[in-house]
Protein backbone atom coordinates (compact mmCIF):
# COMPACT_ATOMS: atom_id res chain seq x y z
CA UNK A 1 0.00 0.00 0.00
CA UNK A 2 1.18 3.47 -0.81
CA UNK A 3 0.88 6.24 1.74
CA UNK A 4 -0.50 9.48 0.39
CA UNK A 5 -0.70 11.38 3.65
CA UNK A 6 1.15 14.66 3.87
CA UNK A 7 1.54 17.13 6.67
CA UNK A 8 1.62 20.87 6.27
CA UNK A 9 3.09 21.37 9.72
CA UNK A 10 0.17 20.53 12.02
CA UNK A 11 -2.33 20.25 9.19
CA UNK A 12 -2.77 16.65 8.09
CA UNK A 13 -4.03 15.96 4.56
CA UNK A 14 -5.10 12.44 3.63
CA UNK A 15 -3.51 13.08 0.26
CA UNK A 16 -1.78 16.02 -1.38
CA UNK A 17 -4.69 16.99 -3.64
CA UNK A 18 -6.61 20.14 -2.78
CA UNK A 19 -8.75 22.46 -4.85
CA UNK A 20 -7.87 26.03 -5.74
CA UNK A 21 -9.94 28.86 -4.37
CA UNK A 22 -12.45 30.39 -6.73
CA UNK A 23 -12.58 27.31 -8.93
CA UNK A 24 -14.41 24.92 -6.64
CA UNK A 25 -17.21 27.07 -5.32
CA UNK A 26 -18.02 25.85 -1.80
CA UNK A 27 -17.53 22.23 -2.80
CA UNK A 28 -21.29 21.80 -3.16
CA UNK A 29 -21.13 22.48 -6.87
CA UNK A 30 -19.06 19.29 -7.22
CA UNK A 31 -21.08 16.96 -5.02
CA UNK A 32 -22.84 15.49 -8.03
CA UNK A 33 -19.55 14.61 -9.65
CA UNK A 34 -17.22 13.42 -6.91
CA UNK A 35 -17.00 12.33 -3.31
CA UNK A 36 -15.38 15.36 -1.72
CA UNK A 37 -14.15 13.35 1.24
CA UNK A 38 -11.63 11.73 -1.08
CA UNK A 39 -9.66 14.96 -1.34
CA UNK A 40 -6.85 16.21 0.85
CA UNK A 41 -8.64 19.49 1.28
CA UNK A 42 -10.78 22.09 -0.39
CA UNK A 43 -10.26 25.81 -0.61
CA UNK A 44 -13.51 27.68 -0.70
CA UNK A 45 -14.15 30.84 -2.62
CA UNK A 46 -12.31 34.06 -1.85
CA UNK A 47 -14.11 35.50 1.18
CA UNK A 48 -14.03 39.16 2.18
CA UNK A 49 -15.15 41.18 5.17
CA UNK A 50 -18.13 42.53 3.31
CA UNK A 51 -20.38 41.44 0.48
CA UNK A 52 -18.85 42.06 -2.96
CA UNK A 53 -20.70 42.10 -6.24
CA UNK A 54 -17.53 41.37 -8.18
CA UNK A 55 -16.76 42.91 -11.55
CA UNK A 56 -19.22 43.48 -14.38
CA UNK A 57 -19.62 40.95 -17.18
CA UNK A 58 -17.61 39.95 -19.25
CA UNK A 59 -15.35 38.31 -16.72
CA UNK A 60 -13.78 35.54 -18.73
CA UNK A 61 -11.75 35.05 -21.90
CA UNK A 62 -10.29 31.87 -23.27
CA UNK A 63 -6.58 32.09 -24.15
CA UNK A 64 -4.06 29.62 -25.59
CA UNK A 65 -4.05 26.71 -23.11
CA UNK A 66 -5.66 28.84 -20.47
CA UNK A 67 -8.14 31.47 -19.50
CA UNK A 68 -8.31 34.95 -18.06
CA UNK A 69 -10.79 35.75 -15.32
CA UNK A 70 -11.89 38.95 -13.70
CA UNK A 71 -14.44 37.67 -11.22
CA UNK A 72 -13.28 40.20 -8.65
CA UNK A 73 -13.99 38.21 -5.50
CA UNK A 74 -17.75 38.10 -5.79
CA UNK A 75 -18.98 36.74 -2.45
CA UNK A 76 -21.54 37.48 0.22
CA UNK A 77 -19.01 38.41 2.90
CA UNK A 78 -17.60 36.51 5.87
CA UNK A 79 -20.67 36.85 8.09
CA UNK A 80 -22.86 35.22 5.49
CA UNK A 81 -20.25 32.52 5.09
CA UNK A 82 -20.17 31.78 8.82
CA UNK A 83 -23.92 31.85 9.25
CA UNK A 84 -25.17 30.24 6.08
CA UNK A 85 -22.53 28.41 4.14
CA UNK A 86 -20.35 26.98 6.87
CA UNK A 87 -23.23 25.04 8.49
CA UNK A 88 -24.06 23.57 5.10
CA UNK A 89 -20.57 22.30 4.30
CA UNK A 90 -18.91 21.60 7.65
CA UNK A 91 -19.82 17.93 7.45
CA UNK A 92 -17.34 17.33 4.62
CA UNK A 93 -14.84 14.76 5.75
CA UNK A 94 -11.87 16.75 4.47
CA UNK A 95 -9.99 19.90 5.38
CA UNK A 96 -11.98 22.98 4.51
CA UNK A 97 -9.81 26.05 4.11
CA UNK A 98 -11.17 29.52 3.62
CA UNK A 99 -9.43 31.83 1.19
CA UNK A 100 -9.40 35.21 2.88
CA UNK A 101 -9.15 38.31 0.74
CA UNK A 102 -9.31 41.99 1.40
CA UNK A 103 -8.44 45.47 0.32
CA UNK A 104 -7.20 46.92 3.60
CA UNK A 105 -5.42 45.16 6.44
CA UNK A 106 -8.31 45.55 8.86
CA UNK A 107 -10.56 43.59 6.49
CA UNK A 108 -8.12 40.69 6.43
CA UNK A 109 -7.77 40.78 10.19
CA UNK A 110 -11.48 40.92 10.94
CA UNK A 111 -12.29 38.21 8.44
CA UNK A 112 -9.56 35.94 9.74
CA UNK A 113 -10.68 36.51 13.32
CA UNK A 114 -14.20 35.43 12.49
CA UNK A 115 -13.04 32.33 10.67
CA UNK A 116 -10.79 31.51 13.59
CA UNK A 117 -13.96 30.75 15.55
CA UNK A 118 -15.17 28.09 13.15
CA UNK A 119 -14.37 24.66 14.58
CA UNK A 120 -14.26 22.76 11.33
CA UNK A 121 -12.02 25.19 9.49
CA UNK A 122 -8.46 24.17 10.37
CA UNK A 123 -6.71 26.78 8.25
CA UNK A 124 -7.06 29.86 6.13
CA UNK A 125 -5.31 30.79 2.93
CA UNK A 126 -4.47 34.47 2.97
CA UNK A 127 -4.92 35.77 -0.54
CA UNK A 128 -2.46 38.63 -0.91
CA UNK A 129 -2.32 38.14 -4.62
CA UNK A 130 -5.66 38.65 -6.30
CA UNK A 131 -5.13 40.70 -9.44
CA UNK A 132 -8.85 41.41 -9.83
CA UNK A 133 -9.59 43.98 -7.18
CA UNK A 134 -8.99 47.66 -7.60
CA UNK A 135 -7.34 48.51 -4.31
CA UNK A 136 -5.28 46.15 -2.22
CA UNK A 137 -5.36 42.51 -3.15
CA UNK A 138 -2.39 41.89 -5.35
CA UNK A 139 -0.64 45.02 -4.10
CA UNK A 140 -0.07 43.32 -0.74
CA UNK A 141 1.62 40.42 -2.43
CA UNK A 142 3.98 42.43 -4.57
CA UNK A 143 6.13 44.05 -1.93
CA UNK A 144 7.87 42.41 0.99
CA UNK A 145 6.89 45.14 3.39
CA UNK A 146 3.16 45.03 2.69
CA UNK A 147 3.09 41.23 2.49
CA UNK A 148 4.84 41.10 5.84
CA UNK A 149 2.53 43.62 7.43
CA UNK A 150 -0.69 41.88 6.48
CA UNK A 151 0.65 38.53 7.64
CA UNK A 152 1.89 40.04 10.89
CA UNK A 153 -1.50 41.51 11.73
CA UNK A 154 -3.49 38.45 10.76
CA UNK A 155 -1.12 36.21 12.69
CA UNK A 156 -2.09 38.08 15.85
CA UNK A 157 -5.72 37.04 15.59
CA UNK A 158 -5.56 33.79 13.67
CA UNK A 159 -4.45 30.87 15.81
CA UNK A 160 -4.65 27.92 13.42
CA UNK A 161 -2.76 27.05 10.26
CA UNK A 162 -2.01 30.19 8.29
CA UNK A 163 -1.27 29.59 4.63
CA UNK A 164 -0.29 32.59 2.53
CA UNK A 165 -1.01 32.62 -1.19
CA UNK A 166 1.68 34.35 -3.21
CA UNK A 167 1.44 36.40 -6.36
CA UNK A 168 3.55 35.39 -9.36
CA UNK A 169 3.56 38.99 -10.60
CA UNK A 170 6.79 39.83 -8.84
CA UNK A 171 10.46 40.11 -9.67
CA UNK A 172 11.59 37.72 -6.96
CA UNK A 173 9.00 35.52 -5.33
CA UNK A 174 11.52 34.08 -2.89
CA UNK A 175 11.80 37.41 -1.13
CA UNK A 176 8.08 37.61 -0.54
CA UNK A 177 8.03 34.00 0.60
CA UNK A 178 10.80 34.67 3.08
CA UNK A 179 9.07 37.79 4.34
CA UNK A 180 5.83 35.95 5.11
CA UNK A 181 7.69 33.00 6.64
CA UNK A 182 9.42 35.46 8.91
CA UNK A 183 6.06 36.77 10.11
CA UNK A 184 4.81 33.36 11.07
CA UNK A 185 3.09 31.97 8.00
CA UNK A 186 2.73 28.20 8.43
CA UNK A 187 2.86 27.48 4.71
CA UNK A 188 2.78 29.25 1.38
CA UNK A 189 0.68 28.41 -1.64
CA UNK A 190 1.65 29.51 -5.13
CA UNK A 191 0.88 30.66 -7.70
CA UNK A 192 -2.13 32.88 -7.96
CA UNK A 193 -2.95 34.06 -11.48
CA UNK A 194 -0.56 35.98 -13.74
CA UNK A 195 -1.84 39.37 -14.76
CA UNK A 196 -2.86 39.22 -18.41
CA UNK A 197 -5.08 40.78 -21.02
CA UNK A 198 -7.01 39.82 -24.13
CA UNK A 199 -8.37 41.94 -26.95
CA UNK A 200 -11.00 41.27 -29.58
CA UNK A 201 -9.35 42.59 -32.73
CA UNK A 202 -12.68 42.83 -34.54
CA UNK A 203 -14.42 45.07 -32.01
CA UNK A 204 -11.13 46.57 -30.76
CA UNK A 205 -12.34 46.08 -27.21
CA UNK A 206 -10.75 44.26 -24.32
CA UNK A 207 -12.43 40.92 -23.68
CA UNK A 208 -12.74 41.62 -19.96
CA UNK A 209 -14.74 44.44 -18.43
CA UNK A 210 -11.70 45.21 -16.28
CA UNK A 211 -9.29 45.20 -19.25
CA UNK A 212 -6.77 43.04 -17.40
CA UNK A 213 -7.44 39.84 -15.50
CA UNK A 214 -5.87 36.75 -14.04
CA UNK A 215 -4.34 34.08 -16.27
CA UNK A 216 -4.64 30.44 -15.24
CA UNK A 217 -4.47 27.00 -16.78
CA UNK A 218 -1.66 24.91 -18.30
CA UNK A 219 -0.14 27.95 -20.02
CA UNK A 220 1.15 29.15 -16.64
CA UNK A 221 2.48 25.79 -15.50
CA UNK A 222 6.14 26.37 -16.46
CA UNK A 223 6.17 29.66 -14.51
CA UNK A 224 4.41 28.11 -11.51
CA UNK A 225 6.77 25.13 -11.43
CA UNK A 226 9.78 27.41 -11.56
CA UNK A 227 8.47 29.50 -8.68
CA UNK A 228 7.69 26.47 -6.53
CA UNK A 229 11.23 25.23 -7.07
CA UNK A 230 12.72 28.65 -6.27
CA UNK A 231 10.65 29.01 -3.10
CA UNK A 232 11.46 25.43 -2.07
CA UNK A 233 15.10 26.41 -2.12
CA UNK A 234 14.44 29.55 -0.11
CA UNK A 235 12.11 28.77 2.80
CA UNK A 236 11.62 26.07 5.40
CA UNK A 237 7.82 26.05 5.62
CA UNK A 238 5.81 23.68 3.44
CA UNK A 239 4.71 24.75 -0.03
CA UNK A 240 1.41 24.13 -1.75
CA UNK A 241 1.94 24.21 -5.50
CA UNK A 242 -0.57 25.14 -8.15
CA UNK A 243 -0.91 26.64 -11.57
CA UNK A 244 -2.03 24.69 -14.59
CA UNK A 245 -2.29 21.23 -13.07
CA UNK A 246 -4.41 19.17 -15.46
CA UNK A 247 -3.48 15.60 -14.51
CA UNK A 248 -1.48 13.44 -12.11
CA UNK A 249 1.70 13.89 -14.12
CA UNK A 250 1.51 17.66 -13.62
CA UNK A 251 0.80 17.16 -9.92
CA UNK A 252 3.87 14.92 -9.54
CA UNK A 253 5.98 17.57 -11.26
CA UNK A 254 4.96 20.14 -8.64
CA UNK A 255 5.69 17.71 -5.83
CA UNK A 256 9.09 16.91 -7.32
CA UNK A 257 9.77 20.64 -7.57
CA UNK A 258 9.14 20.99 -3.85
CA UNK A 259 5.41 21.16 -3.18
CA UNK A 260 4.11 19.19 -0.19
CA UNK A 261 0.60 19.43 -1.57
CA UNK A 262 -1.01 20.77 -4.72
CA UNK A 263 -4.18 22.57 -5.70
CA UNK A 264 -6.23 22.08 -8.83
CA UNK A 265 -8.00 25.11 -10.24
CA UNK A 266 -9.05 25.70 -13.82
CA UNK A 267 -8.96 21.98 -14.61
CA UNK A 268 -12.12 21.58 -12.48
CA UNK A 269 -14.06 23.46 -15.13
CA UNK A 270 -13.00 21.12 -17.86
CA UNK A 271 -13.32 17.89 -15.93
CA UNK A 272 -15.32 18.20 -12.70
CA UNK A 273 -13.94 14.80 -11.64
CA UNK A 274 -10.31 15.71 -12.21
CA UNK A 275 -9.40 16.01 -8.53
CA UNK A 276 -10.20 12.40 -7.63
CA UNK A 277 -8.60 11.24 -10.88
CA UNK A 278 -5.40 12.99 -9.85
CA UNK A 279 -5.47 11.26 -6.46
CA UNK A 280 -5.76 7.94 -8.30
CA UNK A 281 -3.04 8.90 -10.77
CA UNK A 282 -0.61 9.81 -8.01
CA UNK A 283 -1.24 6.40 -6.44
CA UNK A 284 -0.57 4.63 -9.72
CA UNK A 285 2.63 6.61 -10.23
CA UNK A 286 3.81 5.66 -6.75
CA UNK A 287 3.07 1.99 -7.30
CA UNK A 288 4.79 2.02 -10.69
CA UNK A 289 7.84 3.79 -9.28
CA UNK A 290 7.76 1.89 -6.00
CA UNK A 291 7.47 5.00 -3.89
CA UNK A 292 6.03 4.14 -0.50
CA UNK A 293 5.33 7.61 0.89
CA UNK A 294 4.31 10.49 -1.27
CA UNK A 295 6.46 12.62 1.01
CA UNK A 296 9.50 10.89 -0.49
CA UNK A 297 8.75 12.75 -3.72
CA UNK A 298 8.71 16.24 -2.25
CA UNK A 299 11.52 18.23 -3.83
CA UNK A 300 13.02 14.99 -5.15
CA UNK A 301 13.94 16.47 -8.51
CA UNK A 302 17.47 15.54 -9.53
CA UNK A 303 19.10 18.73 -10.72
CA UNK A 304 22.61 17.38 -10.92
Amino acid at each position, binding site marked *: MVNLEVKLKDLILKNPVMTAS*GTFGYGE*EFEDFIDISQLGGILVKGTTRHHREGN*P*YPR*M*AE*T*PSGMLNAVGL*QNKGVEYFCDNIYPRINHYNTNILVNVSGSVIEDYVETAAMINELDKIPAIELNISCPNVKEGGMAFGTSCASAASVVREVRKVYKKHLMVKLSPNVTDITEIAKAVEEEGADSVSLINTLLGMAIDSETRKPLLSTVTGGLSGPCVKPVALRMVWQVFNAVNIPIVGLGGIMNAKDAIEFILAGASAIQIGTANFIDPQITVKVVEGIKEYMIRHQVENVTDLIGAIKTQ
Partner: protein
Amino acid sequence: MKKLVQDFEVLHKEELNDGTFVIDVKASAPLPDIKPGQFVNVLVENAANTFLRRPLSIHFVDYEKNIIKLYIKKIGEGTTKLGELLLGDKLNIVFPLGNQYSIPKNSKTLLIGGGCGVAPLLYLAKHLKDAGNEVTTILGVRSAYDAVELDPYKQYGRIFVTTEDGSIGEKGYPTQHSVLNEKFDYTFTCGPEPMMKAVATYSKSKNIPCEVSLENTMACGFGACLCCVTDTKRGNICTCTEGPVFNINELKW
Protein backbone atom coordinates in the same frame (compact mmCIF):
# COMPACT_ATOMS: atom_id res chain seq x y z
CA MET B 1 -31.49 16.81 -10.73
CA LYS B 2 -28.07 15.24 -10.43
CA LYS B 3 -25.52 16.55 -12.91
CA LEU B 4 -23.48 13.98 -14.74
CA VAL B 5 -20.33 13.82 -16.80
CA GLN B 6 -20.53 11.10 -19.40
CA ASP B 7 -19.22 9.89 -22.73
CA PHE B 8 -21.85 9.93 -25.44
CA GLU B 9 -21.59 8.30 -28.85
CA VAL B 10 -22.26 10.19 -32.06
CA LEU B 11 -25.11 8.33 -33.70
CA HIS B 12 -26.31 10.62 -36.43
CA LYS B 13 -25.31 13.90 -37.99
CA GLU B 14 -27.25 16.04 -40.39
CA GLU B 15 -25.86 19.10 -42.11
CA LEU B 16 -28.35 21.90 -42.51
CA ASN B 17 -27.65 25.02 -44.46
CA ASP B 18 -25.70 28.06 -43.36
CA GLY B 19 -23.12 26.05 -41.43
CA THR B 20 -25.51 24.53 -38.94
CA PHE B 21 -25.91 20.86 -38.21
CA VAL B 22 -27.91 18.62 -35.93
CA ILE B 23 -26.12 15.87 -34.13
CA ASP B 24 -27.65 12.96 -32.21
CA VAL B 25 -25.58 11.65 -29.35
CA LYS B 26 -26.41 8.50 -27.45
CA ALA B 27 -25.84 8.07 -23.75
CA SER B 28 -24.43 4.82 -22.39
CA ALA B 29 -26.77 4.91 -19.38
CA PRO B 30 -30.46 5.83 -19.20
CA LEU B 31 -30.88 9.60 -19.43
CA PRO B 32 -32.02 11.51 -16.37
CA ASP B 33 -35.00 13.81 -16.50
CA ILE B 34 -34.09 16.76 -18.73
CA LYS B 35 -36.07 20.00 -18.74
CA PRO B 36 -36.68 22.27 -21.71
CA GLY B 37 -34.18 25.15 -21.75
CA GLN B 38 -31.41 23.17 -20.12
CA PHE B 39 -28.04 22.82 -21.77
CA VAL B 40 -25.01 20.59 -21.97
CA ASN B 41 -21.31 21.47 -21.84
CA VAL B 42 -19.27 19.48 -24.31
CA LEU B 43 -15.57 18.74 -24.45
CA VAL B 44 -14.03 19.45 -27.84
CA GLU B 45 -11.11 17.14 -28.36
CA ASN B 46 -8.35 17.38 -30.96
CA ALA B 47 -8.61 21.13 -31.09
CA ALA B 48 -5.43 23.07 -30.49
CA ASN B 49 -7.14 26.31 -29.49
CA THR B 50 -10.27 25.13 -27.74
CA PHE B 51 -9.37 24.88 -24.09
CA LEU B 52 -12.72 25.15 -22.34
CA ARG B 53 -15.91 23.17 -22.92
CA ARG B 54 -18.59 24.57 -25.20
CA PRO B 55 -22.14 25.12 -23.91
CA LEU B 56 -24.98 23.99 -26.19
CA SER B 57 -28.72 23.98 -25.66
CA ILE B 58 -30.55 20.70 -25.60
CA HIS B 59 -32.48 20.62 -28.86
CA PHE B 60 -34.44 17.45 -28.17
CA VAL B 61 -34.39 14.37 -25.98
CA ASP B 62 -35.46 10.91 -27.02
CA TYR B 63 -35.66 8.89 -23.80
CA GLU B 64 -36.52 5.69 -25.62
CA LYS B 65 -33.42 5.74 -27.76
CA ASN B 66 -31.39 7.42 -25.03
CA ILE B 67 -30.50 10.25 -27.39
CA ILE B 68 -29.90 13.96 -26.98
CA LYS B 69 -30.10 16.11 -30.09
CA LEU B 70 -27.91 19.19 -30.42
CA TYR B 71 -28.44 21.94 -32.96
CA ILE B 72 -25.12 23.62 -33.62
CA LYS B 73 -23.94 26.53 -35.69
CA LYS B 74 -20.28 26.50 -36.73
CA ILE B 75 -18.81 29.79 -35.69
CA GLY B 76 -15.29 29.09 -34.47
CA GLU B 77 -12.86 26.25 -33.96
CA GLY B 78 -14.84 24.45 -31.27
CA THR B 79 -18.12 24.21 -33.14
CA THR B 80 -16.29 23.48 -36.40
CA LYS B 81 -14.50 20.51 -34.79
CA LEU B 82 -17.83 19.27 -33.47
CA GLY B 83 -19.05 19.39 -37.06
CA GLU B 84 -16.16 17.11 -38.01
CA LEU B 85 -17.14 14.38 -35.56
CA LEU B 86 -17.71 11.05 -37.23
CA LEU B 87 -20.42 8.54 -36.44
CA GLY B 88 -19.19 6.38 -33.59
CA ASP B 89 -16.91 9.07 -32.18
CA LYS B 90 -17.34 9.79 -28.52
CA LEU B 91 -18.29 13.13 -27.06
CA ASN B 92 -17.80 13.91 -23.40
CA ILE B 93 -20.70 15.87 -21.97
CA VAL B 94 -21.54 17.51 -18.65
CA PHE B 95 -25.30 17.69 -18.25
CA PRO B 96 -28.08 18.56 -17.61
CA LEU B 97 -27.20 22.15 -16.77
CA GLY B 98 -29.16 25.29 -15.99
CA ASN B 99 -32.76 25.98 -15.08
CA GLN B 100 -35.67 25.64 -17.45
CA TYR B 101 -38.48 27.45 -19.19
CA SER B 102 -41.65 27.46 -17.11
CA ILE B 103 -44.45 25.29 -18.41
CA PRO B 104 -47.86 26.92 -18.05
CA LYS B 105 -51.06 24.92 -18.54
CA ASN B 106 -53.77 25.24 -21.15
CA SER B 107 -52.54 28.57 -22.43
CA LYS B 108 -51.76 30.14 -25.77
CA THR B 109 -47.96 30.13 -25.97
CA LEU B 110 -45.75 31.88 -28.50
CA LEU B 111 -42.20 30.71 -29.19
CA ILE B 112 -39.84 32.94 -31.14
CA GLY B 113 -36.41 31.81 -32.24
CA GLY B 114 -33.70 33.18 -34.48
CA GLY B 115 -30.34 31.81 -35.60
CA CYS B 116 -29.13 28.93 -33.47
CA GLY B 117 -31.51 30.25 -30.85
CA VAL B 118 -34.03 27.88 -32.33
CA ALA B 119 -32.12 25.09 -30.58
CA PRO B 120 -34.08 24.81 -27.29
CA LEU B 121 -37.50 25.62 -28.76
CA LEU B 122 -38.35 22.22 -30.22
CA TYR B 123 -38.05 20.44 -26.90
CA LEU B 124 -39.90 23.31 -25.25
CA ALA B 125 -42.72 23.04 -27.79
CA LYS B 126 -43.13 19.37 -26.93
CA HIS B 127 -43.38 20.07 -23.20
CA LEU B 128 -45.79 22.91 -23.73
CA LYS B 129 -48.05 20.78 -25.87
CA ASP B 130 -47.85 17.90 -23.38
CA ALA B 131 -49.11 20.31 -20.70
CA GLY B 132 -52.12 21.17 -22.79
CA ASN B 133 -50.91 24.46 -24.23
CA GLU B 134 -51.52 25.72 -27.71
CA VAL B 135 -48.12 26.26 -29.32
CA THR B 136 -47.25 28.78 -32.00
CA THR B 137 -43.64 28.95 -33.14
CA ILE B 138 -41.99 31.58 -35.32
CA LEU B 139 -38.50 30.97 -36.57
CA GLY B 140 -36.51 33.76 -38.19
CA VAL B 141 -33.86 32.97 -40.79
CA ARG B 142 -32.05 34.99 -43.40
CA SER B 143 -33.39 33.31 -46.51
CA ALA B 144 -35.05 30.17 -47.80
CA TYR B 145 -31.63 28.63 -48.23
CA ASP B 146 -30.98 28.86 -44.50
CA ALA B 147 -34.37 27.49 -43.55
CA VAL B 148 -34.41 24.86 -40.87
CA GLU B 149 -36.47 21.71 -40.96
CA LEU B 150 -39.97 22.67 -39.95
CA ASP B 151 -41.64 19.28 -39.85
CA PRO B 152 -40.62 18.39 -36.30
CA TYR B 153 -42.32 21.53 -35.00
CA LYS B 154 -45.59 20.77 -36.75
CA GLN B 155 -46.49 17.93 -34.43
CA TYR B 156 -46.60 20.35 -31.49
CA GLY B 157 -48.49 23.24 -33.03
CA ARG B 158 -48.36 25.92 -35.65
CA ILE B 159 -45.04 26.90 -37.19
CA PHE B 160 -44.24 30.08 -39.10
CA VAL B 161 -41.10 31.34 -40.75
CA THR B 162 -39.81 34.77 -41.51
CA THR B 163 -36.92 35.42 -43.89
CA GLU B 164 -34.98 38.61 -44.22
CA ASP B 165 -35.26 38.45 -47.99
CA GLY B 166 -38.83 37.19 -48.10
CA SER B 167 -37.83 34.08 -50.04
CA ILE B 168 -40.15 31.97 -47.90
CA GLY B 169 -42.61 32.79 -45.18
CA GLU B 170 -43.13 36.41 -44.33
CA LYS B 171 -40.44 38.93 -45.12
CA GLY B 172 -38.79 40.58 -42.12
CA TYR B 173 -37.86 39.63 -38.59
CA PRO B 174 -39.81 37.11 -36.54
CA THR B 175 -40.94 39.92 -34.27
CA GLN B 176 -42.69 41.49 -37.27
CA HIS B 177 -44.72 38.40 -38.16
CA SER B 178 -48.44 38.99 -38.60
CA VAL B 179 -49.35 36.20 -36.20
CA LEU B 180 -48.19 38.50 -33.41
CA ASN B 181 -51.47 40.30 -33.86
CA GLU B 182 -53.17 37.35 -32.21
CA LYS B 183 -53.49 37.25 -28.47
CA PHE B 184 -51.04 35.07 -26.53
CA ASP B 185 -50.66 34.31 -22.83
CA TYR B 186 -46.93 33.63 -22.75
CA THR B 187 -43.87 34.26 -24.89
CA PHE B 188 -40.66 32.24 -24.89
CA THR B 189 -37.66 33.26 -26.92
CA CYS B 190 -34.08 32.38 -27.72
CA GLY B 191 -31.75 33.94 -30.27
CA PRO B 192 -29.73 37.07 -30.91
CA GLU B 193 -30.04 39.63 -28.13
CA PRO B 194 -31.65 42.35 -30.31
CA MET B 195 -34.36 39.88 -31.32
CA MET B 196 -34.96 38.80 -27.74
CA LYS B 197 -35.16 42.42 -26.67
CA ALA B 198 -37.77 43.04 -29.37
CA VAL B 199 -39.76 40.07 -28.08
CA ALA B 200 -39.43 41.47 -24.56
CA THR B 201 -40.75 44.83 -25.70
CA TYR B 202 -43.64 43.15 -27.49
CA SER B 203 -44.49 41.10 -24.42
CA LYS B 204 -44.33 44.08 -22.11
CA SER B 205 -46.62 46.03 -24.40
CA LYS B 206 -49.08 43.14 -24.30
CA ASN B 207 -48.50 42.67 -20.60
CA ILE B 208 -47.78 38.97 -20.91
CA PRO B 209 -44.96 37.02 -19.24
CA CYS B 210 -41.84 36.56 -21.35
CA GLU B 211 -38.94 34.21 -20.81
CA VAL B 212 -35.64 34.57 -22.62
CA SER B 213 -32.65 32.24 -22.78
CA LEU B 214 -29.35 34.09 -22.45
CA GLU B 215 -26.00 33.07 -23.89
CA ASN B 216 -22.77 34.26 -22.45
CA THR B 217 -19.19 33.16 -21.96
CA MET B 218 -18.95 30.31 -19.51
CA ALA B 219 -15.95 28.55 -18.08
CA CYS B 220 -17.60 25.76 -16.08
CA GLY B 221 -21.34 25.71 -16.72
CA PHE B 222 -22.28 24.50 -13.24
CA GLY B 223 -21.80 27.41 -10.86
CA ALA B 224 -18.17 26.97 -9.86
CA CYS B 225 -16.39 29.86 -11.59
CA LEU B 226 -18.76 32.85 -11.37
CA CYS B 227 -17.66 33.97 -14.83
CA CYS B 228 -21.07 33.89 -16.48
CA VAL B 229 -22.91 36.53 -14.54
CA THR B 230 -25.89 38.46 -15.80
CA ASP B 231 -26.58 41.81 -14.24
CA THR B 232 -30.09 41.38 -12.84
CA LYS B 233 -32.24 43.35 -10.48
CA ARG B 234 -30.90 41.03 -7.76
CA GLY B 235 -27.29 41.84 -8.74
CA ASN B 236 -24.78 39.64 -10.56
CA ILE B 237 -26.17 36.14 -10.80
CA CYS B 238 -24.88 33.09 -12.64
CA THR B 239 -26.39 32.46 -16.03
CA CYS B 240 -25.40 28.80 -15.90
CA THR B 241 -27.25 27.94 -12.70
CA GLU B 242 -29.94 30.60 -12.23
CA GLY B 243 -30.36 30.81 -16.01
CA PRO B 244 -29.98 30.47 -18.91
CA VAL B 245 -33.74 31.12 -18.85
CA PHE B 246 -34.82 34.38 -17.26
CA ASN B 247 -38.13 36.08 -16.94
CA ILE B 248 -37.56 39.51 -18.42
CA ASN B 249 -38.78 41.08 -15.18
CA GLU B 250 -35.61 39.88 -13.50
CA LEU B 251 -33.37 41.54 -16.06
CA LYS B 252 -32.40 45.17 -16.39
CA TRP B 253 -33.67 45.21 -19.97
